[in-house]
């Protein structure tokens, strides 16, 4: 009974460990350009500023404000993932996995804040996920051929 309980606990822990490892390995993917920069500029996303503030300033973290900024960026990028230069109008399995990972990390951030633990690592991870989303969208937009059609022509094809 004790052995079975131990195996259950360790196996569940390992399962979550591997799922997180897969997400982190996906996030480590290198893009040949910083495709996320135009997306950030065009949509006035704030996660680079949040990351900068957390990484380089030793000031106390404005938890509520940072959470709001990251969450708003997440909503915007999630919409773009589904609709920007995406003919299928569906999330890919990779997108779905990382969206779930963002939510789980956000939940972990809330728990850490409640327990008064350091939240910097979680905030940086959330920013990394958002940057990856930005890169994916930027890459899609760059590689999509709009040919010579105008904006209204494109909208009429939808």
């Amino acid at each position, binding site marked *: 009974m004790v052995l079975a309980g131990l*195996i*259950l606990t360790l*196996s569940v822990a*390992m399962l979550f460990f591997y799922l997180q490892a*897969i997400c982190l390995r996906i996030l480590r993917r290198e893009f040949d350009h910083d495709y996320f920069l135009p997306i950030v500029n065009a949509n006035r996303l704030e996660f680079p*500023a949040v*990351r*900068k503030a957390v990484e380089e300033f030793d000031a106390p973290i404005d938890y509520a404000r940072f959470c709001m900024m990251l969450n708003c960026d997440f909503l915007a990028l999630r919409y773009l993932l589904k609709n920007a230069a995406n003919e299928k109008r569906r999330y890919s399995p990779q997108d779905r996995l990382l969206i779930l990972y963002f939510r789980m990390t956000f939940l972990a951030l809330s728990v850490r804040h409640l327990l008064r633990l350091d939240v910097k690592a979680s905030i940086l991870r959330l920013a990394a996920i958002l940057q990856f989303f930005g890169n994916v969208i930027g890459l899609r937009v760059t590689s999509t051929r709009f040919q010579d059609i105008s904006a209204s022509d494109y909208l009429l094809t939808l």
Partner: protein
Amino acid sequence: MSGIIASDVLSYAGYILEAGLLVYLLARGHAKRLWELVFYLTLSLGVITARSYTLHQYGLASTQYGSCYWTTDLLLVLAAFVLVISFFRRACSENPEMWQHVRFLLGTVLVAIAGISYFSLASHGDRFFSYFIVEFSQNLYFASLVLTTLLYLMTLKMEVSDERLGMLVCGLGIEFAGPAAGLALIYLNGGNEIARLVGFYFVPLCDAGMILTWFYAVSRVPETAKVPRGSVQPGRVLAEESISRF
């Protein structure tokens, strides 16, 4: 009833994914480099065929189906162990001295598991295809899970440049961790409703998770990782412009 249908849908989705990955590996010419995946997938599909044939011929309650099911289960576990060994070999490809130690460790684990099985068989010889096999599968799965975890940590420690190997190991880890947790839960709950749910949904989901991870590893992840960029993140350039708002 709906649980059984959902379970069947999940299982068949897993079989289709396995067959799809096998075809992909063969069609893209990865069969030689990733022979261990081809071996495991071929055996897995063979096991599915053998089980379906026995089920069709003899029925679910027959002893023939029971024997076939548990024997093929053992075959799959052993094939997975071979997979773990081959991944270790791949991870140690640039470090032959390490491979000597790892080979000794793997041999010791195999002998230890064989010894434990022998004693379990001696004490439960009359219930070979019920009590013993379930416990044996749980122990072997758990041993493989521990070995896979060691392998993953080793790839991190040795900074193995094969990114694809890391992803393949993660997939294998999901395959081992899920059923190991499921079997332990069944043992703790004595086969009640939770155990049924685990059998119906959890194990096929873990199978599908492994195959999808392998698909991703084979199709998207390059074998050799790029050298990571320096500590300066590209986002900082932009962040420096917009930091004034703080």
